């Protein structure tokens, strides 16, 4: 009797471990040069991307990206050091483009920090066209940089209401003393 119970438990454990995808640990990442930190699971890679907006014009961007358990996590940084006073409109345009022609599920104020150090932005959740998944985005403009965080739950994940995108979006910090010790230093690629 005892032997069959042990066998059943062992079998259940093996089946559960095999069936459930292994989830990578979340790590903290920091870029002191660009002035932000965030948390994400999986291996974060660094790329250079391109953006074009009617007001922003063509811009190169720095993209930090990881994919874990069929969720894509992306932090995009664009520099507008020469047009900081246009920050409100540049941020508005970026947010508008993010939700344009998509089904908007939520669009609310986002705030990082408190008091005089607070940075205001927006958090927007959209369903992508053609059932390509659900993206949660947060957008901020601070110190001449437009920083966006996007977490896309891909259809293969199944659970579009996963809480991991919120964990990712909510991890952004602009006051670096709040970053936990041992955060991985992110490189800053040179842009043309």
């Amino acid at each position: 009797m005892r032997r069959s119970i042990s066998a059943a438990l062992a079998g259940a454990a093996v089946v559960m471990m095999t069936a459930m995808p292994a989830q990578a640990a979340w790590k903290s990442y920091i870029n002191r040069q660009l002035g932000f930190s965030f948390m994400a699971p999986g291996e974060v890679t660094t790329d250079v991307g391109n953006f074009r907006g009617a007001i922003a014009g063509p811009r190169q961007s720095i993209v930090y990206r990881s994919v874990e358990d069929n969720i894509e996590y992306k932090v995009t940084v664009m520099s507008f050091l020469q047009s900081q006073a246009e920050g409100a409109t540049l941020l508005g345009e970026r947010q508008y483009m993010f939700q344009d022609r998509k089904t908007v599920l939520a669009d609310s104020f986002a705030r990082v920090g408190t008091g005089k150090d607070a940075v205001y932005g927006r958090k927007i959740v959209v369903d992508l066209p053609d059932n390509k998944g659900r993206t949660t985005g947060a957008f901020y403009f601070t110190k001449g940089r437009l920083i966006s965080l996007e977490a896309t739950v891909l259809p293969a994940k199944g659970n579009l209401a996963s809480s991991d995108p919120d964990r990712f979006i909510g991890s952004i910090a602009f006051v670096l003393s709040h970053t936990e010790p041992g955060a991985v230093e992110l490189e800053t690629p040179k842009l043309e």
Partner: protein
Amino acid sequence: MRLTALAILLGAGLMAIATPAQAAWRSYISHPLGFSFAAPGELKVEKGTYRGPVAGAHDSVVYRFVDDDIEYKVVVIDMGDKANDAATLLGEAGYIFQDGKKVLMDTFGRVDRQFGRKLTIDLPNNAGRATAAFYFINGRIISLQATVLPANGDYDSPETARFVDSIAFFTVRAPDDAIELPAPPK
């Protein structure tokens, strides 16, 4: 037959008396501030102070009108010394406007290459319904706020949207007969 016609005429006359007289809408323009808008009623210019945790305390100029129990306000806040924080200052202004109130609408405002926000809220204690738009341009927050007061009662009045949507930042779009806004009192 004659009696019926007379009664109809009398009724129409009474209705005209019962309906409050609505002031004509006029266009206003400020070349120094770089915007124009339209509003009904008599213009009053006031000075005010705007405060926010990020913004701190800043002087503001309020162009104010009241017509048919709707209050129309254009608030200009000079943020020239903090213009590099434009995005956060605009976000903070919108946040303060709706904080602790019932939000009925919160959407993009898009005018003449400027992105802002448009919000509609119900004021606490049945004090009315306010629709506002917020933009940050040339180092200033420009906010248009129209509040339908309880005495008006028509909270779905289209006049608030007409006012908020009348803003233009390309001043060439203002009508030829637009009235130049006076400078604020010293």
